[in-house]
């Protein structure tokens, strides 16, 4: 163990000598996550081409509820279903038969007409994978409705009122400059303080909690960047092989496991630091909700980094040169991230792909993070994920140790 720590400390010492590498190691994940949060987490953003069935329960029955239905129906990737009562709609979501459901509350139209704040409720599936996407879509569609449509309605209403006419056919001729200015001011006010909010709830958890897209994006990118430690671990060992220091270590009295383990320790710590930094960044900048189980979050992070660095050891055992390392690790990292749910919720993919995704450590890690951060789960909810990740790492490390060429044969 002492020898393993010695190797690990030397790796960290070497890393500390390259300060710009450290800066980039931190800036790259932060920058990319920041951009992703802005793009996918902001209001009005929908980007998915897959069509989802979305039950809509209308308790209001007014024209604004009809407008919501109309706007949602026009979204190319939503197939809005009416006709379900709330209980059925919630059950469909709970049972995983629907990705989510929209509940239009009683008095929704009246609230908008009387300029009182109101909200649409989005109920999402407990897996957590679907929530950010649906949230983005519904927030985008209703946000557009709330902001733009309402602004137009209000503006036209103001114009009508000013003109003393209730007939839209004749409204325009009565509109005066000051009326338009007042309407625009009102519109801007609505843009900054929309009347209609999106309230997201998760069903199936112990309690229903609100969340934001960052709860998917930040851990998603954190896991993806943890996967990049695969590249660092494999690249570091191959680089040492080429420059001869690895040979010097191989002919020294170092146990094999300590040599590879030491290399792994350093990358493991770097991976943990990267994820921790991303979470701190998420909390400070995007007010990310880390959930109610700091211990669970810590353990899932440690297990994820253990699994990723061990995967690096396995890869370096089969990769023979530095020229091979980039194409192979890029395939593994980006493939696992895409397949495992770092970028897109798994439910968007065909069932068979979802099942295949279980072979990636990313899917287990993402599920764990989602359970903790989106569903407010406890340590007990992610034990399986932690266990699988530890086992995944142990298996990769053992196979890597077995396949690694410690001697020329």
């Amino acid at each position: 163990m002492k020898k393993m720590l010695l190797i690990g400390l030397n790796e960290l010492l070497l890393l500390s000598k390259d300060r710009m590498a450290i800066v980039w190691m931190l800036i790259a994940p932060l920058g990319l996550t920041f951009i992703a949060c802005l793009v996918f987490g902001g209001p009005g953003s929908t980007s998915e081409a897959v069509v989802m069935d979305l039950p809509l329960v209308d308790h209001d029955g007014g024209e604004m509820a009809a407008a919501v239905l109309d706007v949602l129906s026009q979204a190319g990737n939503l197939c809005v279903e009416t006709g379900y009562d709330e209980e059925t709609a919630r059950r469909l979501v709970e049972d995983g038969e629907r990705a989510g459901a929209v509940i239009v509350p009683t008095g929704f139209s009246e609230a908008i007409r009387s300029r009182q704040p109101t909200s649409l409720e989005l109920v999402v599936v407990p897996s957590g994978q679907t929530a950010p996407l649906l949230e983005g879509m519904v927030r985008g569609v209703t946000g557009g409705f709330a902001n733009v449509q309402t602004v137009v309605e209000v503006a036209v209403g103001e114009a009508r009122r000013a003109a003393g006419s209730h007939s839209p056919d004749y409204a325009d001729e009565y509109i005066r400059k000051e009326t338009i200015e007042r309407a625009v001011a009102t519109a801007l006010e609505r843009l900054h303080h929309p009347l209609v909010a999106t309230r997201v709830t998760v069903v199936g958890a112990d309690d229903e909690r609100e969340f934001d897209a960052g709860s998917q994006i930040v851990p998603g990118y954190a896991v993806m960047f943890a996967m990049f430690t695969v590249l660092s671990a494999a690249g570091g060992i191959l680089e040492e092989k080429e420059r001869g220091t690895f040979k010097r270590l191989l002919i020294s009295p170092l146990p094999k496991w300590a040599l590879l383990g030491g290399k792994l320790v350093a990358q493991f710590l770097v991976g943990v630091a990267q994820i921790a930094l991303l979470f701190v960044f998420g909390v400070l900048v995007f007010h990310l909700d880390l959930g109610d189980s700091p211990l669970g979050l810590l353990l899932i992070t440690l297990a994820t980094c253990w699994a990723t660095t061990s995967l690096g050891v396995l890869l370096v055992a089969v990769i023979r040169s530095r020229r091979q390392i980039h194409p192979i690790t890029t395939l593994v990292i980006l493939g696992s991230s895409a397949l495992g749910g770092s970028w897109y919720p798994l439910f968007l993919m065909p069932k068979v792909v979802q099942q295949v995704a279980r072979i990636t450590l990313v899917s287990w890690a993402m599920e764990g993070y989602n359970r903790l951060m989106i569903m407010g789960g406890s340590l007990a909810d992610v034990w399986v994920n932690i266990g699988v990740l530890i086992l995944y790492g142990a298996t990769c490390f053992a196979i890597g140790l077995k396949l690694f060429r410690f001697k020329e044969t």
Partner: protein
Amino acid sequence: MALVKVENLTKTYGEVHAVAGVSFEIREGEIFGLLGPNGAGKTTTIHVLCTYTEPTGGNVTVAGCSVTAEAETVKRAIGVVPQEIALYADLNAVENMRFFGRVYDVPEARLRQRIGELLQLVGLTEHAHKRVEHYSGGMKRRLNLAVGLLSEPRFLMLDEPTVGVDPQSRNAIFENIQALNRQGLTVLYTTHYMEEAQLLCDRVAIMDEGRIIALDTPQNLVQTLGTGLIRIGVKDGVSEEMLARLRALPRVHAVTRHDDSLAFETVDAQRALLDIIALFNEMDTPMTSLHILEPNLESVFIQLTGKQLRD
């Protein structure tokens, strides 16, 4: 007493026989040289001795321990200065030495002392805290040597330790090795520079194509050439009759026929040359080249193989 025993060592990579049945012993306290061109099998032999490479066949022991069955014991008895600059370029000399010393379990107090001694030995005390990446090639080689000595080994293997170094650093490395040898260190030194082997080594094994083709003291090996070696290029070879007449010349000790040349070991090269030229003229055989080589290990190699050491 033999510290190292190599018996019928073979190492093959697919169809390539890197080492093809090599046997030798290294006595305690001697500097033993492995001399040969690139690809002769020197590095592979060292790799087997330092447990880095699994031999295909044969029996190799260091200090009585098998390099295959008792590798961990062997590792603690040996020091290796690899052909590569096996140092962390981002670290300074002290950081490199501290790390590798700890890898070899050198106690901290002894390690501090040892680092100071070795830096002084290789003349790098003033550069101890400078990053290795800023060292010259010679300084890197000297530090490479110092790191190989950290664990105070009984047996030190140096694989081409002077490649690419300036004459000053080369001399410094020679002096270091000789000083260490005087203190009782047994050394295996591989090189393709015959002057180095001749200057440093008590005994030399000349290797070519995975085999040892001669093994003796440098003096004895050179003496086999007599007073000089004459090498004459012949385009179409020579007849058996002419070869017999050449061998019968009074000042010619031996004649070796290679593909496109003849090598003459002579008693008196200058006078022998006159006789040889006269015979070539008499037999109307054209010469394509003519070299008179001073008697040294390179000439021995040429005489044995018909090839230059440095291709």
